[in-house]
């Protein structure tokens, strides 16, 4: 039976369509257990950027899957040209692997998708919807994605300004748990960086804002200590990382103020991240020893460099995907001869047991265990080469060509369904 897949994603559909089509875990489980129950195997992957349905079905038309999605989400039109991508067999497996590796993500190489693919597999298992073919495809996808992340740069570095700020801080200080951050400005950008710093395990965080009320509000959210803007110069002496993101028209930190702070800090390193436009820190402060002043452009340079690294890694990841797709196809071809191999083994085992039983009296009791071992080993070795040959022959036609005479010669039972 063919493997089919349909994908509605950020390339094919605007956000309104993706929103309308999205499934939360409960809905996905219900969909798999009820609406899509007619498909022998099915997996639903639903994230903010994509909804994809993978299925094994005797009907070879991916349109069937789109119909099911449309039924589950009335009002969503999926038959418009280019609205959905359709895949079949190897292409469907390849697509799943590419998705798991982050090659199809909006932000190339993002890591979250692998977890989402795994969750989709767990949901399918819970709904009793995952069969041999799709379960194996998910395993291969997870393995390939992990290999891609460890052996290539596909997931390397930060790819947003806020995470680039944290990456830079880590390159300077390493462990952030004993460091102090000062975030100046409680706007959206400041809050975002503060959240990233908190998630990175910053030891202590001070949050300064022109209005203390707003500082308190955001400080509570990111577990920081609120300060007014007048608290910035003294805080400069103790903080290791200073993030400035105010809407001030003039610099709030002059070169002299930074120089005075550095004297008090006795040359201890200071990372100044100025992500405000217009800038909050006098650019001349970058001349001071042990001061690392980086503005929004510098952080974007980090992001660009990381994205470039990820882009360069794409051919290597694609090669890994191709290798895995080939491996999966070979495994799948091998499945067609499994019933013959099983039947052959059962027949040999039957003969072995019968002969052993018939000759049991002639074997001394102390040698019976050895005889059991010996006959088992004999059968195993005799069947090893034929089994391997069958597996390698694989494909439907070649497998059948070898299976038929074997079944005839050894009088094996007919395959179920034949």
């Amino acid at each position, binding site marked *: 039976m063919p493997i089919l897949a349909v994908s509605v994603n950020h390339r094919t559909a605007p956000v309104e369509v993706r929103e309308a089509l999205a499934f939360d875990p409960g809905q996905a489980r219900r969909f798999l257990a009820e609406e899509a129950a007619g498909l022998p195997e099915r997996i639903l992957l639903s994230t903010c950027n994509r909804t994809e349905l993978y299925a094994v079905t005797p009907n070879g038309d991916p349109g069937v899957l789109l119909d099911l999605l449309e039924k589950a989400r009335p009002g969503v039109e999926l038959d418009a040209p280019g609205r959905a991508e359709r895949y079949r067999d190897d292409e469907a497996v390849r697509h799943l692997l590419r998705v798991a590796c982050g090659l199809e993500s909006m932000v190339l190489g993002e890591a979250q998708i692998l977890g989402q693919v795994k969750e989709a597999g767990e949901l399918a298992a819970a709904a009793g919807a995952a069969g041999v073919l799709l379960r194996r495809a998910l395993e291969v996808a997870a393995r390939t994605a992990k290999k891609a992340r460890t*052996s290539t*740069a596909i997931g390397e570095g930060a790819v947003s300004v806020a995470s680039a700020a944290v990456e830079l801080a880590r*390159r*300077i*200080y*390493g462990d952030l748990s004993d460091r102090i951050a000062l975030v100046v400005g409680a706007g959206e950008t400041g809050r975002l960086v503060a959240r990233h710093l908190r998630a990175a395990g910053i030891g202590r965080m001070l949050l300064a804002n022109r209005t203390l009320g707003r500082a308190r509000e955001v400080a509570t959210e990111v577990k920081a200590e609120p300060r007014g803007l007048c608290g910035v110069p003294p805080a400069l002496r103790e903080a290791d990382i200073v993030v400035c993101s105010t809407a001030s028209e003039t610099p709030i930190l002059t070169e002299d103020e930074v120089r005075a702070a550095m004297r008090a800090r*006795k040359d201890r390193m200071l990372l100044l991240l100025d992500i405000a436009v217009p800038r909050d820190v006098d650019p001349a402060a970058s001349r001071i020893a042990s001061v690392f002043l*980086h503005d929004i452009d510098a952080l974007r340079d980090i992001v660009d460099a990381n994205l470039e690294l990820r882009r360069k890694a794409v051919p290597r990841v694609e090669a890994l995907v191709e290798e895995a797709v080939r491996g999966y196809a070979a495994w799948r071809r091998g499945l067609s001869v499994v019933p013959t191999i099983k039947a052959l083994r059962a027949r040999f085992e039957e003969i072995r047991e019968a002969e052993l039983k018939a000759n049991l009296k002639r074997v001394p009791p102390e040698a019976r265990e050895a005889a059991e071992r010996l006959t088992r080993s004999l059968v195993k070795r005799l069947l090893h080469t034929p089994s391997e040959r069958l597996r390698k022959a694989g494909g439907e036609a070649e497998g059948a060509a070898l299976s038929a005479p074997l079944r005839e010669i050894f009088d094996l039972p007919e395959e179920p369904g034949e």
Partner: protein
Amino acid sequence: MQTAVDVLSVLLPACYALAAADSIVAFVGRSEGARHFLRPLVIVALGAHLLYLGLWAAVAHRCPLGTVFEAMGIMAFSIVAVYLAVEIRGGSRPTGILILPLAFVMVLPAVAFRWREGPANPHLSDPWFSLHTLAGVLGTAALTVSFVHGVFYLLLYREIKAHRFGRLFRRLPPLAVLHRKTHTAAVVGWAFLAVTIAAGYVWAARHDALETLPADPMFLLVVAAWLLYSGGLGVRFLGGWRGRYTVFLSVGGFTVLLVALVIVAFFFPSLHVHR
């Protein structure tokens, strides 16, 4: 025993070559395996080296410090031992890319020329001279490790300051870690250097050679290097200064020491003549 020494003289450079190659792969590439195996490889190389030194001392019936090449072997062993200690203490990404190839280069002549040298230095039987030499080798090893980390620190400092986010930025440990490693190794080296100078002074006094010391360029340069290190550590411990100036002093101190060890010792008349 001689056979064991012969076998180890082949195995030892091979162990160091393997560790050096692995350190390069771990630094340049992305192989987790290379990083994972680096520490065990270094430990194996050190174990083999220790065995070699013990066997060689037994075969040659002397402390393996009697020739320049033997001193190089001990120095390589000490450098790698200090590197390993600093690496274990400091954590983070491995920085053996310069240290392990250097150790390999030093070990090669140390095992290859072990028969070609004349008899050992007769002064080695004097405990003060032995202490002076051993502390000197250990101190120089620690300061080499400090220097390498100091250079890495300055390179990364420049990269970050200039907003260059290339391979060094991605592969080197964080600046603070490099600073800590530079400092830790410098403290060890400084202490051994102090012992070296003190033991050498006592030895010179016992052999009526004190009057030659003020004119001995090696002695003067080593004392100058030690003072530079003392300055660097002093501003850190007493003044609480933490920045790159302490690294500058560390790198400067090692440069002076290198001049003393290589140029002066080989080309200028001195008590410290290398043969």
